[in-house]
């Protein structure tokens, strides 16, 4: 069909396009990192207290749980779905923790396990409902969010557990140097998820299901099982976040989780995870969480109206997603010119 020369030119172009694409994908992570470092530099120049041990500790402690909340949503975004019941599952786990520690007086590992199991169980319920009824995950988790919160309130009668064993509350103060010890948990979770999505069968199956559920099913992927497991995992992660927050506050409050929903989308979306499913960026989600935390922290230090922070966060989200969209368009155009 085409001459040798044309073929050579074509494959050279193909190579260039592939390189461009991977550059842009790295650029996302790289870009985020750059922005974060820039932010940190700027903020600490203007408000040197940013780098103080006190501030770093507070920043990283909040970051730790916020990042995990973002991960919990990311796992379900991979499926192309949403988990609106994140906060509700979190608070149930919180209450289980409080109850186990305070009322039952059981050791901390048991309480943590119970909390994670609760999260996983509730997540599994979501997954089962979605698979069993075939109804949109948005609607299902919208309903279960109310259901789970209501159930929690009914059972606990909205009591607060604030007489938690001191060893547990002490965990809230754990530190590694100036940084909160919670970050260890976060990094562990981050590593585990990275492993999951890049090096495991289940991770690949989740992404395949999210990208094209019919094709995945016809290729032998057990899509129903995958959906249930992903939701269960999301629940477990919500539980982890709940435990961390409880330790942080040294109390199990029924109001925990109320404000988790929207931030839970922010980190993964900023980090490049696609709303449509089929692609996640674990490192991106972590960086996204860092960016948001740093931004928030910085604005507080500047005595900026604590509320303008919301404003800037919104702009940041728009900018990030807009940029991403623009990048996709560029890559598409480059690949079209190829053929």
């Amino acid at each position, binding site marked *: 069909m085409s001459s040798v020369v044309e073929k050579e030119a074509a494959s050279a172009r193909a190579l260039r396009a592939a390189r461009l694409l991977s550059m842009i994908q790295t650029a996302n992570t790289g870009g985020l990192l750059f922005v974060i470092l820039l932010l940190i530099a700027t903020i600490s120049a203007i408000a040197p207290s940013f780098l103080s041990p006190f501030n770093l500790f507070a920043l990283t402690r909040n970051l730790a749980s916020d990042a995990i909340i973002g991960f919990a949503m990311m796992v379900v975004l991979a499926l192309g779905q949403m988990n609106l019941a994140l906060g509700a599952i979190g608070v149930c786990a919180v209450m289980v923790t409080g109850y186990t520690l305070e009322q039952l007086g059981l050791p901390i590992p048991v309480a943590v396990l119970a909390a994670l199991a609760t999260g996983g169980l509730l997540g599994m319920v979501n997954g089962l409902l979605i698979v069993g009824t075939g109804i949109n995950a948005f609607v299902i988790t919208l309903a279960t969010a109310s259901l789970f919160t209501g159930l929690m309130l009914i059972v606990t009668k909205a009591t607060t557990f604030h007489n938690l064993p001191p060893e547990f509350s002490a965990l809230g103060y754990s530190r590694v140097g100036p940084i909160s010890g919670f970050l260890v948990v976060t990094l562990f979770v981050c590593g585990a998820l990275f492993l999951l999505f*890049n090096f495991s069968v289940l991770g690949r199956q989740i*992404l395949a299901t999210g*990208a094209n559920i019919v*094709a995945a*099913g016809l*290729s*032998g992927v057990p899509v129903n099982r995958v959906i249930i497991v992903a939701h269960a995992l999301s629940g477990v992660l919500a539980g982890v976040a709940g435990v961390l927050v409880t330790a942080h506050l040294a109390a199990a409050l029924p109001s925990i989780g109320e404000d988790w929903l929207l931030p839970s989308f922010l980190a993964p979306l900023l980090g490049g995870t696609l709303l449509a499913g089929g692609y996640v960026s674990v490192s991106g989600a972590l960086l996204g969480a860092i960016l948001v935390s740093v931004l928030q922290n910085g604005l507080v230090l500047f005595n900026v109206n604590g509320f303008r922070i919301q404003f800037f966060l919104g702009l940041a989200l728009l900018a990030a997603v807009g940029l991403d969209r623009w990048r996709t368009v560029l890559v598409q155009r480059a690949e079209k010119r190829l053929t």
Partner: protein
Amino acid sequence: MGALLEVRQVTKIYPGVRALNGVDLTLRAGEIHALVGANGAGKSSLVKMLTGVHGPDEGEMRLRGEIVRFSSPQESLAAGIAVVHQERNLIPRYSIAENMFLDRLPTRHGVVQHAKMREDARRWLDMLEVSFDPATPVQRLSVAHMQLVEIGRALSLNSNILLLDEPTASISESDVDRLFKVLRRLRDQGAAILFVSHKLEEVMALCDRVTVLRDGKNACNDRSLEGMKKVDIVTFMLGRENAVSDLGVRSQRLGERRLELKSVTTELGHRDIDLYVRAGEVVGLYGLVGAGRSELAKAVIGSHRVITGGEVLIDGKRTSIGGVLEALRKWRIGYVSEDRKGEGLILTHSVARNTAITIWHAIAGRVGLISGQREDSAIRPYVERLDVKVTSLAQTVGNLSGGNQQKVSVAKWLAADTRILIMDEPTAGVDVRTKGYLHQLVWELADSGVAVLLITSDLSEMIQLADRIYVMNDYRVVEELTNSREYDLMSSSIMNAIQIDNDRVSVPKPAVALA
């Protein structure tokens, strides 16, 4: 009479494929013109061009002598070209009437006149002698009736130029008769009608002239149908001298019956399906669009639990296949889907992931861990064997040419080392070279002991490859033929089998919603 709509030397190139290569088409007023061609011949590309979905890369289009170029379907519509597409384009919850007039909702002082729409719709439905209440929501109709609604819509545009793309694919015989009556009347009133169809009997019965496309070129252009026989058209379509690849003779080493269906019935309408495929055999399943072949294949692999009766035997033992997972892992049955973009591939993922998807569980280490390297090395042999043209296994499948995409969608089943492979239209929309490759592959698979069930609407492909051929029509198997590989004999036997079956059915074909 001068041409109303003319297409001259148009070329249309998609990534990797020349869909149209210097094609001509002439539509005159007062004429029903057939556009015929095998799958992938370029019919739908040409229709898309006429209706403004895509523009030509080369060549020109003339409307009433003036050069035109449509940049959107709305422009084509505004220019007076009414079209009924192959796929349905209706708003499910809207009524028949509203769907018909969606592009020109009648209003008075800003208020939509629903009653007037229903009245007007009634007129067109009456013309087609269809007795629906125009207020019926379209989603409650069967696919056949939906098609009639769209035909009614096209008619209601009162335009001079009417394009019908496979308009009788789903409708019953009596409806076909009525439609033809209407079309003839329109023709007599001076309309130019383009009738795209693979149903040659209908073409012979209705049309005045014919243009046949083959591999993106005119096999014949604007011929009068007077004195032509069906077999002449088929010759144009398939071009015997254009045998894609000469595979020679295959020494068949046939084993036991690996897959067998006995009196299988399904919820979808299949009845008394008897067929078997032996190890090392290539069995063809031929039928026209709507015969129920893909549906049968999907039923067999357990994609939908629709088998209601009869027996499915694997290696002689009665089995019940619970789902695709079981079909693949336990019975090693694979299914190459006819819809490679929607069902066969994950377009946003890499070649490696798409190919390895069927064997992830097998190549994983303990704890279900798998590395990109292991994945690559596991599937590279298959990618290379199929000669998939990629610069790296990480390339996104969506960016490959149609032929390469199809190779990937087959590669994953090779990787899965299936014992039974059902291939559904494996060379549709694929370039000639890849077609040859895949044909060779089918024989190699059979030679290595795989039981291959080949579903294709490409008669010459079927006769070239299959050892035995089952002919399906109307969700039933109507004939079983041993392939003598003599083209004329086999093609007429097959066509006759379908014809006889069609004639036999005196009850009008009911409509079917294809799964």
